[in-house]
């Protein structure tokens, strides 16, 4: 997709692949045939630049034809560079400006609670995204309103746009900060181990009385040697040669 479009955010997509696969495959209550079903669990992509993994997961889950992925970022497409609510069905929020997803997800959970809907909201954020103050406003408000069935997920790949996260803005210790804000937290989980991902997300799903957070340790660009842990593959597309090598490594 990203190679075809010659643009797009590949690194943070590859670090979140297992997380989305487990959410849509094992954890979430959803039905691709009924994207408007009110009782469905919602997935909120707060790091809205990671549309490659979001669209691929939705297509593989049956929300729209896999063939359509090749239109990514191209003229006339429904698959814009950053998430757009309802385009295609299954995309639950508009994003691209970081820091807003947790608040949006919180609002959805508050609305569900008013309507006695017991569905879950899962919000995926980046570790660089934790720099945004709004994230902490949402964390505080979720705990204040004793919201549960709200599951925040941080893809801790250690890299943001310009550089490593530790060099840009020290946000750690994230687990202790969220605990101090009133959240149940599990951290240090291998985000590329399917069993570990499923175990942690199932735990978070069952937390009651508080919002829950899972922090996954991941590798940006996971699976392709020259992309792994390389800040240059945040938002850059691979060249023809790199694309060929990557496909070999992933095969």
């Amino acid at each position: 997709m990203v190679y075809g479009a010659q643009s797009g955010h590949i690194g943070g997509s590859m670090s979140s692949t297992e997380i989305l696969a487990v959410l849509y495959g094992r954890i979430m209550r959803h039905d691709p045939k009924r994207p408007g079903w009110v009782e469905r669990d919602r997935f909120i992509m707060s790091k809205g630049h990671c549309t490659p993994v979001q669209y691929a997961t939705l297509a593989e889950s049956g929300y729209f034809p896999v063939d359509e992925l090749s239109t990514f970022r191209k003229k006339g497409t429904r698959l814009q560079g950053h998430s757009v609510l309802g385009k295609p069905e299954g995309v639950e929020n508009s994003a691209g400006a970081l820091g807003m997803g947790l608040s949006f997800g919180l609002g959805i959970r508050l609305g569900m609670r008013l309507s006695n809907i017991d569905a879950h909201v899962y919000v995926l954020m980046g570790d660089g995204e934790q720099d945004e103050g709004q994230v902490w406003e949402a964390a505080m408000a979720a705990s204040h309103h004793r919201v549960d069935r709200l599951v925040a997920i941080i893809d801790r790949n250690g890299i943001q746009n310009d550089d490593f996260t530790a060099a840009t803005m020290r946000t750690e210790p994230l687990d202790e900060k969220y605990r101090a804000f009133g959240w149940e937290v599990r951290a240090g989980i291998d985000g590329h181990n399917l069993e570990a991902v499923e175990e942690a997300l199932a735990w978070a799903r069952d937390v009651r009385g508080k919002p829950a957070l899972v922090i996954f340790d991941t590798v940006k660009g996971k699976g392709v040697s020259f992309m792994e842990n390389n800040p240059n593959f945040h938002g850059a597309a691979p060249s023809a040669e790199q694309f060929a090598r990557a496909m070999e490594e992933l095969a």
Partner: protein
Amino acid sequence: MTTTNLPAAATREALGPTLVRLQQNGANIVVVDADLGKSTSARTFRDAFPERFFTFGVAEQNMISAAGGLATLGHTVIASTFAVFAEHAFDQLRMSVAQPKLNVKVVASHGGVSTGEDGASAQSVEDYALFSSLVNFTVCVPADVVEAEAMVAAAVATPGPWYIRTGRPKIPVIYTDGPRFQVGKADMLREGTDVTIVACGLLVERSLRAAEALEASGISARVLNMGTIRPLDVAALEAAAKDTGAIVVAEEHLTHSGLGAMCAQAIAATTQPVPMEFVGVQSRYGESATWDEVLEIMGLTADGVEAAARKVVARKR
């Protein structure tokens, strides 16, 4: 001026190198950044003056208020991010910069819809409106990289809040003989008698091409580069109305709230209002496609400007 075979460069490339040069020549610049220094070229300044560069991470609101604080100590503060993310900190701009009239220059890259593939979320179609609504702000949009350098230098030399919007794509260089930028003054790039095209940003070169096409069919078009959106050069607009009797405004922004709307207000207040047409984004958000295709979809092309000019000329009595 002809528009054939011009070299191309992105206006965003001007920021870092210009700031380095000014600092080497004795300016008192501090740069604040929100995790986009690679793309805005602000990193060039960090590499040269690391102690005068602060990153705030992905936290624009924090960055803007801190920029205001830094400015109270006499520093010339350059706040660098993308245009859409500058919008993210609107109240901070109002309270920490505009009202106290502090010396903060917001130089925002990736402005307009010509960010292309990234789609609607990354396309600023409302930044002229937002920044022009802030009292005390000077708002500028360069037509090419040469003018962008001149604007950054002028901003650093002039106390007070500024907003400069630069762009992502490589566009033709118009000012091959050097910049002619003067704050608050329109630059007449082409004289004409039948209609005036007022443009800013990448629409300037497109308007010059439109004027060449109009000339071929006997319509003489004046082209004004309105590099300063606020304060507007009202005298140049009045002269355009008087001399040519019709005006087209072309911009990479929503028509209902941008340069066109501001020019219309100025023209309406003159003794001799004239017909006007507006080329810009028509009450919608963008979409993904190449930057050139998005401009085409929005009608922000030389053809679009030419058609608007024909229309407004036909409306003249």
